[in-house]
């Protein structure tokens, strides 16, 4: 199978209504593991993820996957900060991405059942997805994203609205996905979470990649003043 990585961004920029939100960004996404995008609110983390995933139009510069854009889209998934729950049962929500890919209904449903077992959603299969609790919704979002076995998974602050135990469940799922070889790019402003999960860190500030390093290096010896301040829990503006 041809990999869609590396993803190369050369001066990639994103605008919304004439206002620059992100860029120019030079960055290459490659290798394995989990890349954590951290930075203050409004730094452009979300837009950066959406830009890479293709939800946000590239308004300048270049963004290139190793394969064609159409092929690349088939092998990635996105988990949103606020889970988007379809108005259907958990089982049908899980089967949906498979049906989109042209899988037969019976096969998709049986795969969805297996998937639900792995993500602790087995007892909720017949529940109405919008009625789930916050933690369950986000777990369903993750399961729905991972059911297509994406090569790259984007997550936009998936634990932002969750409590401790729900966050631990999500982190466990992410660790397993990482071990299974899924390349993960995740935004978070929880420094504890960043330390627990990250292999690589992108410190995003004012719409640009302010600092980019291996996690160990970044947390022990940040280079820029802003990154140092952010790690120390100071307010970075």
């Amino acid at each position, binding site marked *: 199978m041809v990999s869609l990585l590396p993803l190369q961004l050369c001066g990639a920029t994103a605008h919304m209504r004439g206002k620059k939100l992100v860029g120019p960004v030079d960055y290459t996404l490659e290798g394995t593991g989990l890349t954590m995008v951290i930075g203050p609110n409004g730094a452009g983390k979300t837009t950066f993820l959406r830009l890479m*995933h293709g*939800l946000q139009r590239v308004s300048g510069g270049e963004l290139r996957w190793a394969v064609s854009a159409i092929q690349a*889209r*088939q092998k990635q*998934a*996105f988990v*949103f900060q606020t889970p*988007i729950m*379809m*108005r*259907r049962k958990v089982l049908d929500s899980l089967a*949906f*991405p498979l049906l*989109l890919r042209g899988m037969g209904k019976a096969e998709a449903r049986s795969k969805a059942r297996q998937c639900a077992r792995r993500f602790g959603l087995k007892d909720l299969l017949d529940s*109405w997805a*919008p*009625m789930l609790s916050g933690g369950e919704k986000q777990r369903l979002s993750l399961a729905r994203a991972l059911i297509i076995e994406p090569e790259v998974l984007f997550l936009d602050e998936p634990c932002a609205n969750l409590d401790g135990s729900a966050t631990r469940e999500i982190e466990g799922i992410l660790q397993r996905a990482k071990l299974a070889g899924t390349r993960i790019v995740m935004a978070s402003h929880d420094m504890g979470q960043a330390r627990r999960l990250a292999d690589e860190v992108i410190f995003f500030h004012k719409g640009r990649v302010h600092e980019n390093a291996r996690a160990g290096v970044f947390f022990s010896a940040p280079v820029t003043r802003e990154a140092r301040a952010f790690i120390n829990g100071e307010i970075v503006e």
Partner: protein
Amino acid sequence: MSGIGQGFWEAWRLIFTFDPALYEIIFLSLQVTVSATIIASVIGLPMGAWLAVNRFFGRRYVIAVLNALMGLPPVVVGLFVYMALSRAGPLGGFGLLFSPMAMIIAQVIIITPLIASISHQTIRDLWAEYHDLLISMNATRYQRMQALLRDGKRALLTATLAGFGRAIGEVGAIMIVGGNIEHATRVLTTAIALETGKGNFAFAMGLGLVLIVLAVIINLAIHIIGKTERASTW
């Protein structure tokens, strides 16, 4: 006020003496309106979904026209259908004028814009909710419409029922194209118009009450069926 009291009595008598003429009229009313509602839904619901997920030049104008067509005067529609179906008209060869089929055609023209417009508004809201997810999942345009129609079905019922309501109470167009012929094209509304004209107010009132009760029963039945299917807020 005794006229209204008489009307109630007449309605009661008509229903419970199983007046065959009445049941014939009720049956034809339902046949015409249910057929028209189904056909208009098959056209209007996908049209609403299509308008919600597609961006094209002049979209706003199409929607504005659609909304305007919701208030299409039935008499005018009747006139157009009459001219199209009359012997000299472009569709005259089918010999459909003064048949239930002609009435169905007229009703479809009247209620399709209504169903399309209401379903467009409903689906537009759901699309705003689903947009990022469906784009992220790479759903094709057709798949997007399919998902929106499926998941919005509870709300779309309202669009269909609004269409049904307008069609069952409509008189101007079906009077023109159906002709209100006894045992052939006489339905509840045209019968009411006729009986009122003849001065049979009590009978007309009775038919009117039957019409209202019928509309309420159908709406209730559909809502109950819709809810038993899935127990939840939608």
